[in-house]
Each structure stands twice: as structure tokens, then as C-alpha cells.
């Protein structure tokens, strides 16, 4: 591996470790705080350095790929592999960029084996990138998934030339790509069809005999697991007999192989139980008891894949069953179990060992933010979301806290000018005097804190060691949608959803607005406008540097287009400007202290 490649990888690792706010809490606040500040500075340096490494070493290399020697291509490939190892997945973006360039090269060269290989690898890179937008509404995430599907489909289309493609490795990529099409489609029938197609190929002696060295039994196991995931569609009642049989068969195969192992994991036992429930073989009560047992049998400090499945994933499923069945909402026994399981879920996530943080955890966090059921639980979704942001998106929380404080000041000024300015918000209109002011300012603070929760859910805050690629940037623009979807799911955060959705939108509805936010239809629009302004100031200064005066000039220039003229007009108040200036330059120690205290408390509760 080239020196720049090793350095890049080390830098990414270092930045990931530095970003963890949960590290070194035992050293006391002052020590921890100074480490945080040093980490923030160091991450900035690493970002600059890695961007420089890509600009000066990788991109020129991709520029001149046509003239690259074979050993250089091999080095590039190795570099890419170390960025996407299916576990830590340090940088799917650069992995994808390298394989995209290599695919172009081999297309021009007409090297079909290499084209198939690069299509498969590009598809895997895109799949991991698409996880940023996983769980988003269909119309938002579909374009990304579709391009991913096409890449695997193109590789799979070489099946028609399987015999002619003599390289066995290439044949393996064709088979795996066929199966991977199922990863990119959401429609359950298409998923079943894709997995079914893969299984047919895997079971076809014609294909197997042409590539005897391939790990066919592993392919089969993986395909069955993929097919068994379709059990969630069993209860829909729209599957044909053949489809039903295939899903059930795969669930059985997965269960059979797990039973044979000494320590069957919850991860593979649950699909079978779930299938039995979905088919009506066992009652809901029995299923809930099975779930309770699987969850209870998982040790609280088990952080491997099976442990996280029992401590996190199954708890979410349990909560989802209670959410779906209204009659269970009064079942105190079940609610007590959910409450306890949610507490453990929270502790598990908050106390996750720093040295184990990997792509799986990011996936779990997204899953929790998307599916947590707070009904009747001590830990509200608001508390959970706040805790996860503080631990895994620490700097995001600090910036959110600042946005909140600035929004508070803006709202205070606007309320003084016009006591009814925020009266479109029903709970504000219902209050008067001090109570009204207090409630409004608290709301403004929390709107600022939660406006970027979408970035925590998408895991995009992780891309901190370089600039964003074009596709990543398009995904990043969806974080308001991701945030609002997450906040809308639970009562404790519903109030902040509109602001999260609209805080990056243009006041006049022009591009680049976030589709779905209708400013005039939202009773929170004035608050959203205020948070949008505060967010712009904070982000602009933290990302691009510069001074407050320059940012103010940009705001005035965008008055009536990007920003609401009503909010901008508040900036004519000299006292407000002084307040904002002071907030920006002030020590952020109190915000860090809040995070420290929260994480310490979580740590102590976990002991």
C-alpha cells in the first residue's frame, strides 16, 4: 500500500476514535473537556490533511488511470478494500469512487471479467452508502437504491454469458450480484423473486459444475438468510403459494443450521419464531413470551452481533408489536417488560465500548431512532434521542445547543416586538405573560437542539475526515426529512418535527428547498424561520470560518429568499446582535458540561 493510503486510513481511524464523546469520562470534567477541545482541533487537521491526500495523491492517480501499471491498480484495489471491510467500513465513499473509476477504465478496455468484478464491488460500495438514506420514505431514497440495483442487475445480466465467462471468480461475482439485487429493492414480492432467482441458480448443477471452487454452501446459506428476512411480509396475505413456500423453507433452513450450532443466536432463532407467528402457528402471546425470553437471555453487556440483536433489535420488535396492537397498550405486564427492555436498550447504546464502535452500531442507532416505542416508558424518545446525540454526535449536539440559544434570543426579541408573533403555535397562544415567554424560549432551545437529529440517524456526521462526494451531498440534503420522520414517530418529539423538516428550506420555497415542507401550512413556521437563521449562522461559521459580519451580509443578501424578512428584521436590534456575537465567541464549556454529566450519569446507571 502507498504511504498516502496508509496515512489516510490511519487518519480516518483516529478521527473516528476522537469523535467519541464517551471516551475518557473517568478523568474528570476538566481533563475530558480539554481533550474534547484538542480532539475537535485535531479532527479539523485530519480533515484538511485527508482532503489534501485525496486531492494530491488519489485523484491524480484516478485522473491518470489509463496509464496506470497493473501493480498500481492492485494497490488501489487494496486501498479500497481496507476502506470497506464489512465491519468498520471506514469510508464507503472513497471505496465507491475508486471502483467507479476502475469500472470506467475496464469498460474502455473491454475487459469483461474486470467489468463484472468492478460492478459487484461498486454495488457493494453503493449499498453501504445507501444505508445513509435507509428507512427514509420511498420517494426520497428510491433513486439511490435504484442506481445500486442497476449496478448489481448489470453484473447479474452476465448470467446469460455464464458459460463464456471462463473465470470462476467472475462467475462467483455474477451469482452474488444476482442475490444482491434483493438488497436494493423494497417491494417484498420483488425481494422474494430476487432471492428465489439466486437460490435457483445456486441449486442448479449447470452453474455449480462450471465453478466448483466457489463456496456454494456459503452462498446458499446467505441466500436463505436473505429470503428468510421476507417473513415480515407473510402477514400481508398477498403472497402466492410458491412465494409462501419459499420464505417458509428458507426460515426453516436458517433455523436448522442454527440449531446445529452449540449456541444458537437470537439473530437466527427469531426469524423462525417470527415466521411461526406470522403464519398463525403460534399465538401472539406465545410469540411475545418467546421474545421476552430471547431478550432476557441476552446478557446486558454482550456487544457482539447477537448481543446487540437481543438487547436492541428484538426490543424494538417487541415495542412495535405493542404499538401495532391497541389492545396491548393496557397490558401492564407487557408494558413493564417493554419499559425494562427499553431501559436496557438505552444503557447498552450509551455504554457501548468505544473500541468496538463499527458500522453495525451505526445501523443499530438508525434502527432505534426509527423504531423506538416510548409508550408507557420511563425513557421517552426525547431523552433517548438526546442521549444518542450526545454520545455519538457530540459536536452536533454542541452546535445544536448553540443554535438553540441563538434561536432563543431571536424569539425573545421578536416576542417583545409583537406579543402575538408566535400565536399560530397553539400551545404558545394558549399561554400568557411569563409562562408564554418561558415556554416559547424553551421550545426554541429544543428546536435548535433537535433540528439536525437526521444526521445522527443517517450516520452522516461520521464523514468528518474529508469533503462530501456529489452523491453523499445529495444524501446529506435529505437530513431534514430523516430528522422530521424520526421526530414525528413519538409524542415526546412530535413538536420539533416541522422545524427539523423546514430548517434548511428557503423561505420563498425556491431551491434548494426540502420537498415536503409547506411553510404556510405549518403553524411552527415562524419558529422554523428563526431556527433556520440560527442554524445558518452556526454552520457557516463552523464550516467555512469567516466572521459574523460576513455571515450577516450573506443573510441580508438572502432576505426574503432564503430567510424570512420578519426574522431578519429582528437583526436590526443592536442588543440582539450583541447577544448573538457574544454567544458565538463565548466558551462552550457549559454545553460540554451538560454532555459530560449526561454521559456520566448513563455510565453510572449502567454499572
Amino acid at each position: 500500500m502507498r504511504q498516502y493510503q496508509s496515512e489516510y486510513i490511519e487518519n480516518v481511524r483516529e478521527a473516528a476514535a476522537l469523535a467519541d464523546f464517551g471516551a475518557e469520562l473517568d478523568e474528570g470534567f476538566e481533563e475530558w473537556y480539554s481533550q474534547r477541545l484538542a480532539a475537535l482541533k485535531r479532527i479539523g487537521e485530519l480533515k484538511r490533511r485527508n482532503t489534501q491526500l485525496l486531492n494530491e495523491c488519489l485523484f491524480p492517480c484516478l485522473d491518470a488511470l489509463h496509464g496506470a501499471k497493473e501493480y498500481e491498480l492492485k494497490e488501489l484495489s487494496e486501498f479500497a478494500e481496507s476502506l470497506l471491510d464489512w465491519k468498520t467500513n471506514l469510508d464507503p465513499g472513497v471505496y465507491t469512487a475508486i471502483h467507479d473509476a476502475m469500472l470506467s477504465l475496464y469498460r474502455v478496455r473491454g475487459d469483461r471479467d474486470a467489468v463484472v468484478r468492478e460492478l459487484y464491488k461498486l454495488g457493494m460500495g453503493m449499498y453501504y452508502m445507501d444505508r445513509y438514506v435507509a428507512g427514509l420514505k420511498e420517494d426520497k431514497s428510491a433513486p439511490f437504491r435504484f442506481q445500486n440495483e442497476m449496478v448489481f442487475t448489470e453484473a447479474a445480466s452476465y448470467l446469460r454469458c455464464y458459460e463464456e465467462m471462463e473465470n470462476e471468480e467472475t462467475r462467483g461475482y455474477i451469482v452474488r450480484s444476482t442475490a444482491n439485487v434483493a438488497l436494493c429493492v423494497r417491494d417484498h414480492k420483488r425481494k422474494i423473486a430476487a432471492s428465489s432467482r439466486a437460490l435457483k441458480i445456486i441449486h442448479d448443477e449447470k452453474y455449480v459444475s462450471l465453478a466448483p471452487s466457489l463456496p456454494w454452501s456459503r452462498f446458499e446459506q446467505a441466500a436463505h438468510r436473505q429470503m428468510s428476512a421476507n417473513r415480515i411480509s407473510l402477514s400481508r396475505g398477498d403472497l402466492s403459494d410458491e412465494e409462501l413456500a419459499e420464505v417458509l423453507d428458507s426460515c426453516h433452513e436458517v433455523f436448522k443450521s442454527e440449531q446445529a450450532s452449540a449456541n444458537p443466536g437470537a439473530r437466527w432463532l427469531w426469524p423462525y419464531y417470527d415466521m411461526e407467528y406470522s403464519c398463525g402457528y403460534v399465538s401472539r402471546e406465545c410469540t411475545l413470551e418467546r421474545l421476552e425470553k430471547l431478550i432476557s437471555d441476552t446478557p446486558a453487556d454482550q456487544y457482539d452481533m447477537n448481543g446487540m440483536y437481543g438487547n436492541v433489535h428484538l426490543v424494538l420488535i417487541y415495542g412495535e408489536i405493542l404499538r401495532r396492537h391497541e389492545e396491548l397498550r393496557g397490558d401492564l405486564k407487557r408494558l413493564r417488560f417493554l419499559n425494562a427492555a427499553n431501559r436496557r436498550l438505552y444503557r447498552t447504546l450509551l455504554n457501548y465500548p468505544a473500541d468496538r464502535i463499527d458500522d453495525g452500531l451505526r445501523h443499530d442507532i438508525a434502527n432505534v431512532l426509527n423504531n423506538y416505542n416510548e409508550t408507557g416508558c420511563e425513557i421517552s424518545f426525547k431523552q433517548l434521542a438526546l442521549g444518542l446525540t450526545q454520545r455519538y454526535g457530540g459536536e452536533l449536539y454542541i452546535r445544536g445547543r448553540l443554535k438553540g440559544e441563538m434561536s432563543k434570543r431571536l424569539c425573545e426579541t421578536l416576542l417583545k416586538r409583537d406579543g402575538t408573533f408566535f400565536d399560530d403555535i397553539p400551545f404558545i397562544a394558549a399561554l400568557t405573560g411569563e409562562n408564554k415567554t418561558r415556554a416559547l424560549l424553551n421550545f426554541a432551545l429544543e428546536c435548535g437542539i433537535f433540528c439536525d437529529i437526521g444526521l445522527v440517524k443517517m450516520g452522516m456526521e461520521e464523514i468528518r475526515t474529508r469533503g462530501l462526494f456529489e452523491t453523499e451531498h445529495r444524501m446529506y440534503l435529505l437530513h431534514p426529512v430523516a430528522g422530521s420522520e424520526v421526530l414525528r414517530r413519538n409524542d415526546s418529539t412530535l413538536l420539533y418535527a416541522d422545524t427539523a423538516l423546514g430548517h434548511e428550506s428557503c423561505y420563498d420555497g425556491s431551491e434548494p428547498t426540502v420537498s415536503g415542507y409547506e411553510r404556510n401550512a405549518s403553524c411552527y413556521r415562524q419558529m422554523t424561520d428563526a431556527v433556520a437563521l440560527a442554524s445558518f449562522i452556526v454552520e457557516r461559521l463552523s464550516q467555512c470560518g469567516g466572521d459574523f459580519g460576513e455571515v450577516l451580509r450573506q443573510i441580508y443578501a438572502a432576505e426574503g429568499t432564503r430567510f424570512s424578512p420578519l426574522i431578519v428584521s429582528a437583526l436590526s436590534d443592536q442588543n440582539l446582535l450583541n447577544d448573538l456575537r457574544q454567544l458565538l465567541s463565548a466558551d462552550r464549556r457549559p454545553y460540554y458540561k451538560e454532555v459530560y454529566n449526561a454521559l456520566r450519569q448513563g455510565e453510572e446507571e449502567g454499572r
Partner: protein
Amino acid sequence: MADYDHMSKDELVAEIERLHARLDEANAANVAKEVFLSNMSHDIRTPMNAILGMAALAQKHIDEKTRVADALGKIQTAGRHLLELINDVLDMSRINSGKLRLVSERFALGDLIHDISIIIKPQMTQKGHNWSFKAENIQAEALLGDALRLRQIYVNIISNAIKYTSAGGDIRISLSEELEGELCRLNFSCVDNGIGMSPEFLTRVFEPFERAQHSGTSGIEGTGVGMSIVKKLVEALGGEIGVASEQGKGTRVDISIPLSYEHLELDLAPLKGKRLLIIENDEETRSAYQLYLGEYDLDYSLVRSAAEALSELTLAEFENKKYDLAVIGESIQNSQNPLDIAEYLQKSRPQLPLMLVSSADWEKTEYQAQRSGIRSFVPLPIFRKSLINALSGVLKSVDGGQNASDNPDLTGKGILLVEDNFINREIAMEILASTNAAVECAENGKQALEMFAASEPKHYDIILMDIQMPVMDGYTAASSIRALDRNDAAAVPIYAMTANTFQEDIDKALAAGMNGHIAKPIDINALMQVLRRVAGA
């Protein structure tokens, strides 16, 4: 005045009956006019309320630009509706006074149908109607007649179907023809499963100021003169109209209008020996392709999904029988978005020209479609000759000039290639040589700037600019060229050629005045695509 004194008894009885009938007619007319006035006052008041209410709301929120804009938008909608009402009434009066003028002009039936589709589609979509607009094996595509009035007739009938069919209902529109010598009888039919009409109302359907339901109670807007206008326009065009309806079951309207037509010449030459790949899942559209393309014995494959298309393309490339053109339809299996498919095909096979066949409004789709690599557009429903000529047009532009290859002919065009890497320069030069363009090279940004500054005006038609170069980088060179005090400095297209795909780099290239970027390593087809655009310009 009749001479009643000299009339016989029978004559008097007949006269009295005649007078009674006239009186009944007059009374009926009065009643209808009263109903009309009552309807009109409601129909005029409704948008007027909206206008006044919204104006008041705008005044109340005068400082809030988006609220004001929203109110103005609603005022505009209400104003347009009011204008429609007035136009209907004026049309009626013009027809009644014999002042209607018809024009005879050449028009393409496909364009007319597409225009109508665009007008009605939003209303259909809003109400969630299942609808189709089929044209059955039309031969006469170039017609002579009053296209504006035809559109008015068809839109009126379809709008009625939309109005009187509840959400989720079915509306089937079809068009067929009967050729009679130099005349073409255009048969239009619109069938819905809406509320229908009673036998009693059906007899009065063409009377002015009549409506199946009162707008005040049904919420269905209209003056009640639409059908009357339609009938008079159809008659003025020498046609016939028939309405069949059953209350609660639906309505069928048939209109037949004779029109002159012209024979369209077909340009089949560019299609000879070419392979076409068509992605379409809708059965009727597929049948139309089979009929039209089969008639001329063209070599085509019809697939239903993007996956099938990719499979076909891969196999064809493997067997060295590449496709020359891909047609992406509107209805693709698994509801795949045609432009997403185009985007992938453009990236993976930039040499494959793409055509879009869709009922979408091209004006609204054009920008995105062209970015996705779409070269040509054919509106739905497809017509034989329009389709064939559009296919020929694309293939002709691909083959254009003396070049038999896919490469554009840039004879007489000047290209400035700025590239510091020797191998990349060699590769680019080799690619560009096939276009017949006059290519000059610069090894860094400074040299490029000097060469451009020293050149005659409009000497270069495009600049292909590497980004990372010694002495002066591509960004600086591009912005320096743009800053030169000469007319062509602002206009010459400058494309970055770079592997840097960070969003901030793309933004930087655009900020430096570049028009776009071509990814590296240099992909012949991607480069050709940009050059084709230059050739087209």
C-alpha cells in the same frame, strides 16, 4: 300578426296550440335563464369570495412574503376560473349571433392529443382516476382544421367526465379514424363510470344553462353552457355528437368530425440495419410498437423492465450485435422511473442514444431528461409516423455528416485541450481526432490562458480543462479566461476534466465559470456526449 278573424275553427285551434307551445318554450327559456342567473351568481360569487378573502388575508400578512405569495397564487387561480366563466358565456353569445370564425391550419394530431393530455392529467391525477387515452392505428397524422376548437371540444368533454366521475373512477378516452378519400373522419369517444344522467336530463343535455347537478349543492362548478357550446362547435365543424348515459352508471360521448389530411413522408433510411431496444410494459403501447415497427420490418426488441434491458444490452455486446438506440417508455415494470433508467444507461453506455416516450409535459421534463441523457422525446399516445421519424431523426443525428461512427462531426470546430499528463493528452488527442475538430493543446492553465487570449475571436468552440496542473490550475485558468475583455470569453464552453468529485470541487468548478465536468479516467463516450452537445449548438 295572424289574421284571427278569417281563420277557421281548426286553424284557430292549431294556432292556439302553437301559441301555447311558444309560451311554454318562452317560459322554459325564462326558467333556464333564471336558473342560469342563479348559477352564475353563485359561480361568480365563489371565485369573487376567494379573491376578496385572499386579498384581505394578504393585506393582513403584508410583511410575510410567502403568505402574500400564497394568497396571490390563489387569487390568480380564482381569477382564471372567473375568466373561464366569462369566456364560456361570451362563446355562447358569439355562436348564437353567428359570429364564430373557424380557421383551417395544418396541425399534428399527436401534438394536439399530447396538449390535451397535459391539460387533463393534473385533474385526473388529483382525483385519482384510472384513465387511458388511446389512439387506434391512426394513419392521418397531419391534419388540416381548427385545432384550437378541436381542443376546446375534447377538453370540455373530458373535463365533464372528470367533474362527474367520483375519485378513483374510470375514464377511457379513445381516438380512431375512418379514411374517406381525401377526408379523414376523426372519431373521439370518452367513456366514464361517473354519476351519469337521467333519461329526462339527457334530452336537455345540449340546452344552454343546464347542468346535471346544481353547483350550489353538488360543489361541481360550471356555467352549464359547455355542452351547448360543444354541440354548436361540432356542428360548425361539420361533425356529429352523440351522448349515451345511465344514471349511476356513467356516460359515453362520441364525436365524429371530418377533416382534411396530408400524407406524411416517412424517413426510413437511417433505420436500415439498426437495432432498437424498447423498454415498455403497457400492453397497448407494446402492441402499437409491434404494429408500427413490424410494418416496416425494423429490427427491435421489446422488454418490460430495466433489468431485462440491461440483460439484452449485455448479451448484445457480448455477441457483438450492439443496439443503436434505446427507447424508454412511460410504463416500466416495477414502476421504475424512466429518467432513473436513462441516468444509469447514460452512465454505463454513453454511446447508446436514448429516446423518451411519455405523456409528461416535455417543457417541464426537458431539463432533467436531457441531464439524464435523453436525446429525443415522443409524446404518448404514439403515432406511427411521428415515432418512425423521431427514431430516424435521432439515428441521423448520431450518424450525422461524413462520420459513420457514433462520434460527432466537429469539422470546422476548434478545441483547446488543457492537460499536463502526457498519456491523458495522447488518449484525448486520439479520441478527438475522430471528430475532425482542430485540436490544440496546452500543458497548463497559464499556457491555455495565453493561447485563448492570443486567438482570433470564436477560434475555440470548447475548452477541455484539467484541474490539477503545474504553474496554473484549471480553476484559475477558467476564471481568468472568463475575466478576459472579449466577447467570446464569457460564452466559450469550458468543461473540467477531473476525477475530483467532491461536491465542493464541482461547486468550485462552476464558481470558476466552467459549464460542467467530465469524470476521469477519460471515458470516450462521456467525452463524446459533451462534444455532441457542442456540435448541436
